[in-house]
């Protein structure tokens, strides 16, 4: 059983949380009409050995979605942050503005002095360029709709 340091509620058992998938993928903008970015977002996942960013929800607690950095090999948890803060920082960074003051990162122990053998390099953002090489599917014509 894992124990997660919820930024709101403190250290809690895994059974209070539910796993919510890979947190390193970014949801395309709502107006995105191309198929490929959505296919990547929904279906394409790396399976890293080592550090992994993942969503967890404190379902039986404060109901906050969290971004947890977990080592898939050792189950070591190195940081737990509010997903909301991560999202806002990303949005601010994209806008070129300095990130607003947010809840501090919860890192109960000092930075990991990790074994080289158990660590994959930190995950890089998925490269869009690489997917360009793949054959781009034609967007299906929208089905007939009424108003």
């Amino acid at each position, binding site marked *: 059983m894992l124990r997660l340091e919820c930024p709101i509620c403190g250290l809690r058992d895994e059974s209070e949380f539910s796993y919510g998938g890979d947190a390193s993928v970014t949801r395309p903008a709502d107006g995105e009409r191309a*198929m490929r970015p959505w296919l990547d977002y929904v279906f394409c996942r790396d399976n890293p050995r080592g550090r992994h960013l993942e969503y967890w929800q404190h379902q039986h607690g404060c109901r906050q*979605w969290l971004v947890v950095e977990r080592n898939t090999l*050792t189950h070591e948890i190195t940081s737990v942050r509010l997903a909301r803060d991560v999202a806002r920082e990303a949005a601010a960074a994209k806008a070129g503005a300095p990130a607003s003051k947010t809840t501090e990162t919860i890192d109960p122990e000092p930075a990991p002095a990790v074994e080289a053998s*158990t660590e994959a390099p930190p995950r890089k953002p998925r490269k869009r360029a690489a997917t360009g090489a793949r054959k781009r599917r034609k967007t*299906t014509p*929208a089905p007939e709709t009424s108003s």
Partner: protein
Amino acid sequence: MSGRRLESGGRIDRAKPVTLRFDGRPISAFRGDTLASALLAQDERLVARSFKLHRPRGVFSAGAEEPNALVHLRAGGRHEPNARMTQIEAYEGLLASSQNAWPSLRADFGAVAGLASPALGAGFYYKTFMGPLRSTRFWMLCEAAIRRAAGMGRPPRDPDPDAYEKVNGFTDLLVVGGGPSGLAAALAAARAGAEVTLVEQDFALGGSLLSEPIGGAHDALLIPMRAELEAAPNVRILTRTTAFGAYESGVFGLIERLSDHHTAPPPGQPRQRYWVMRARQAVLAAGAIERPIGFAGNDRPGVMLAGAMRAYLHRFAVQVGAKIVLSGASDDLYEVAADLAASGAEVTLCDARAEAPQTLIDAMREAGVSHRLGWAVAKSQGAREIEGATLVAVDAEGRALGPMETVRCDAIGVSGGWTPAVHLWSQRFGKPIYDQARDAFLPRPVGRDQGIRAAGRMAGAETLAARLKSGAGASAAAVTALGLQPADIEDVVDSSPTPRFCETGAPGRLRWVVRTDGAPFGKSFVDLQHDVTLSDVDQAYREGYVSVEHLKRYTTTGMAADQGKTANMLALARMAWLRGATIPEAGTTTFRPPYTGVAIGALAGREVGRRLRPVRRTPLHDLHEREGAEMTEVGAWMRPWWYRASGADLVEAYVAEAAHVRDYVGMVDVSTLGKIAVQGPDAAEFLNRVYVNGWKSLAVGRLRYGVMLREDGFVMDDGATARLAEHEYFMSTTTAQAAKVLSMAEHLLQTAWADLKTHVTSVTDEWAAIAVAGPNARALLSSVCRGADLSRDALPNNHWTEATLSGAPIRLHRMSYSGELAYEIYVRSGYAQAVWSALRAAGAPFQLKAYGTEAMGALRIEKGHIAGAEIDGRTTLRDLGLERMASRRKPFVGGVLKNRDALFDPERPRLVGLRIRGEAGAQSGSLVFPKKGALEGHGDGWVSSVAYSKTLGGHIALALVARGPDRMGEEVRVVNFVGEQELSAEIVSPHFYDPDGTRQNG
């Protein structure tokens, strides 16, 4: 007295004699004995039969590693198979019986299996029953016989009458193991002020110190440590407790056996307690397990681990034999030899090493031990018991060098070296690392401190002083990590007695005694519990199963209930030797929980029977039961299924209830619907993004049906949402998807849509909901509701209004699931019963009846509304005929991926109605086939929902059928392969009843 109990000594309470029963025979013992020591004291050697070959077996160890001495414990519902005699505390009335033997231990019929043993070697099962013989009559014949003979012990047949409980534990420092290193670790942390939990599987603290003479220097060490720990207010001592599993984040599973040493648990006391212990730091001091030596007949009753002989001597005052041969290659053996000789036994010590320090040689001469250097036991002699030992001169690898010599003896003590009990460490961190000097797998460094440290013998410390220091050191590191100042226990370490016979410091290493060519002299067991021999390992090697993982599975070594605690090292050392590889090259397997078997009852705790899982009841539950509703489970919810007043059985009742709604008026509890308050200035935008249809135009006072997709474009849920105020909406979801919808909404609002000023809150439990449906609904509600105009013009369909009913404030949503003129009453849960009762009281003139979920289902099937059977996670808007709902003017969740090419495949099953011909109804899950052609494959689709419709005068169904909407009027076959039913049906529109909606809009 024919027994082997010494006149004095031991850690048994001679003032408290108890009588046990083994196979019906009374056995005298004392408190402080184990079942094993009690039987050995009575000179009962043959205590069990082996698993596969039914060979006679005796007690082999004095602890949790016991491979042989397994028994059935207690009787009836308290029956427990495969209990280790070595850990069963003696108490008055203890009931044990041998297992794997029929008709009796001494005359076991199954022992003929031993005669067939050449055929029962490694891979016997695979070779015999896979391939051509599988599924033949021959196999069927053998299977019955094998099933009867196979298995270890007999499972209990009666329900367990005892209670078990679960506890959530928290501690600063968990110390696993109450031996010297564990005691030192606990003491050091206790002195430093940490909250300590000390766990010991035995009923007494002390570990290996208990195997030392009573009243000696070791007791002078043990007693003050134990006293200080027992007196410390910050130390919790859990004896009779096994730490069976180590999990992430410092979580440990413990089983505390509270009542296993009583005939029945004392009143109010559980039998066992399962601790989920969360430890900020842990010190594992689990000790080490002695290894057997592979020689011919090394399983005969009377062959025992040398360390266990010493435990029986000093702890239980039992001298296991009068003439004892010891075989091994370590200094440890000299201590055993000297002590056994001092107790009056005639001892022969075979040290396989060619040389020994003169001090040891002198000591043995002084002790009167017959001492042979460069010798080992090659064979045991005897039948059911040891009668002698055949000795042979050996080289360092255990190969015979010369002629053999047989000596008479009644017990053989063996020591093949020590295996650190790294199980818990390995469960957590994977494979241990091989230490050449110690010839043992030890915990390795794990990089960043994970708060778990190994200490004592488990960590490779050998002498008592080293073990105490190791415990104190691990404890100091843990204490420092806890932010406390480590405390000194030098006084304890300094008082540790110096070993008498530890001269060379080199660990013993004698794995087997074999012929010059390496072949065994006879059946030489590696895994006593699973009857795996050296020859089986050799055979696995010859047949190519050389990896340890293959070896394990092919020979089943280490796969018995003891998980190879004594066996594993010997098996993998043999494989390494066969391959000419080193031990680390051969590798080791990984340990997984549990360390020793755990009763399922303990894991279940109190969550049994009706407490198996939580049950959700609506605020109206009591009324439903009082009104004669048959209840049904819908997820965790209990809902009224049908009312006994409506009919004699489910079918009669639901058909009548559904028809009644169409003719008059009915009401049903729909409180289980998910209800979500959506609030904030961006609430409309949020709804616009999660639902496929548009929400911006919805005015306050109105409500709308919506459908939402998952991100992958498949339909996820549907329901109505009402706009209560400018910035406030009340969303309803299906009962089944409520949690998922809320979670998805929260996810989007906290990640991609973190900029939306919207908040979602589950209000499912705050609101009860009652649907009132039928032509008389308006008249009924008008008669009971105050403060609202329910006329057709004032409250058209898809509008809501506030009102009071029986004084309770309600919200009346006009919407229809049944297709009739219908309303949903939303009321605070606390008023729900008052409102239901008021409707009942006023209902008679309007022919009001309550209906259940089955009738509700029939009504919606008639209407062609989709529910969980159609929204099964595999259907798209198009499949369900709802694609016209999707807006093209705005993005929404799943809006792009729903357009994937494959989802427009014309062969995709799509929603249709079926009119079933004849008197019999279809079963959901039946397959739909064309009228002509073979019944092959999965047909054209499947039936999702079925009902009998009195209104329509026949059986109907909803189905998903390939090209369905283009096949209206086509005759098809509906086939249920499970029930062997074949019906014919006509494909029709799913909207069987009132397709224009005149009734619901009326």
